[in-house]
């Protein structure tokens, strides 16, 4: 397919339609509104349905219905709307239903503001709903990845029968970049567990209610086995100049792009810095971080939130190496020079008087 100039939010919808998404339920919210706008335009053209729900709570439960019927369904929102959807995530994960939701993060908590932030990390990656479940989380850093990871999200959702979240910030959602879309997906027949109102699917049961303790425990162990398998098989990460890095910067989304510039600037000043950009936030690239810690002397996490990603990096390292932390919040994105000053302060060789 030829390249086209496309807004990040629009790329999500185009990729979703090409991936076979035929149902969009949502409620508009800045900075994710263009997703609903594009969905209203493109889904009916593809023979799908766009429906503006009365709230995000309704939207996620409409997805529950569509996913139960074996339809590829999605929604999108930003922080406050995602908070409302958390109950639905829990029910979808419990009933083992696939779906894709995009979270275009804005400033929080509360109404916060409409500027880009990464403060939804904990509520998405750690799960904001109740019970023993996880959502698979993909973190794009460009419009191209908005498209690619949306395609991947639908495949992962079907493979793991679990909600998948595309976690982007307002920057990536609003920016326009050239993007090349994947060709139209070959859609498998509806899954055999789907409830489609036909005689053949009459015996199928989609529910998250399991009253018997032993049966419930077996169900939870099955879910856990899926998450362990994701941890083994689904991790994606971009490593940039880490082969000879003494210090490793960790950041996702828009921060990953800033950090790439920081790596070049720091190396020009003789500090051997590399970048690890997690593309999947759950499953988290634990093994990759540990591997880099064999050579790297220290890590530095940069995020647009109050120390949420840094927790996972610390857990992955288990104290093997020191972890430094830098953040901007409220809609501010640090410049490369700003992060470079931080890196030099923490990692550059300092002159110490020994004689004289």
């Amino acid at each position: 397919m030829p390249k086209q100039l496309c807004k990040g939010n629009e790329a999500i919808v185009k990729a979703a339609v090409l991936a076979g998404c035929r149902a969009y339920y949502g409620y508009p919210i800045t900075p994710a509104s263009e997703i609903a706008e594009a969905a209203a335009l493109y889904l009916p053209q593809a023979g799908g349905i766009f429906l503006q729900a009365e709230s995000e709570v309704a939207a996620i439960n409409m997805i529950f219905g569509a996913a139960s019927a074996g339809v590829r369904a999605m929604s999108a929102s930003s922080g406050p709307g995602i908070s409302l959807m958390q109950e639905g995530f829990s029910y979808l994960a419990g009933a083992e239903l696939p779906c894709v939701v995009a979270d275009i993060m804005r400033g929080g908590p509360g109404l916060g503001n409409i500027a880009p932030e990464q403060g939804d990390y904990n509520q998405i990656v750690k799960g904001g709903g109740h019970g023993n479940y996880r959502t698979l989380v993909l973190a794009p850093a460009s419009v191209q990845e908005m498209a690619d990871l949306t395609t991947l999200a639908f495949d992962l959702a079907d493979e793991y029968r679990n909600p998948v979240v595309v976690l982007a910030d307002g920057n990536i959602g609003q920016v326009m970049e050239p993007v090349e879309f994947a060709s139209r997906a070959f859609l498998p027949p509806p899954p055999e567990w789907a409830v489609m109102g036909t005689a053949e699917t009459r015996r199928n049961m989609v529910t998250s209610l399991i009253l018997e303790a032993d049966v419930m425990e077996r169900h939870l162990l099955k879910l856990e086995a899926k998450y362990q398998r994701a941890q083994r098989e689904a991790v994606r990460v971009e490593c940039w100049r880490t082969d000879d890095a003494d210090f490793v910067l960790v950041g996702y989304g828009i921060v990953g792009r800033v950090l790439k510039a920081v790596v070049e600037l720091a190396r020009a000043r003789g500090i051997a810095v590399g970048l690890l950009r997690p593309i999947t936030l759950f499953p988290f690239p634990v093994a990759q971080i540990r591997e880099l810690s064999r050579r790297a002397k220290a890590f530095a996490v940069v995020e647009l939130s109050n120390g949420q990603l840094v927790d996972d990096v610390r857990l992955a390292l288990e104290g093997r190496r020191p972890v430094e932390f830098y953040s901007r919040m409220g809609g501010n994105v640090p410049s490369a020079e700003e992060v470079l000053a931080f890196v030099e302060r923490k990692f550059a060789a300092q002159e110490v008087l020994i004689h004289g």
Partner: protein
Amino acid sequence: MATDGKPDRGRVDMNAEECKGCGLCIEACPPKVLRLADHLNHYGYHPAEYLGAGCTGCGICFFVCPEPGGITVLRLVLQPKAA
């Protein structure tokens, strides 16, 4: 960057106005990165000067210098301290 391609490990500050040009530091310097300057200081001596690269921060020049306050040696230390 030193001539052997390794990054500098230190730096040396020569106090040109106190130097009497005896040349002891130049003899003693293991990587041979010191020399007598072409210009004269206010005493009329050619003071010792640092070539600008290659110092290992060993401090031997400091110990051989007969002039109090003549030489200061700084060593580059990587931060943070190895965990």
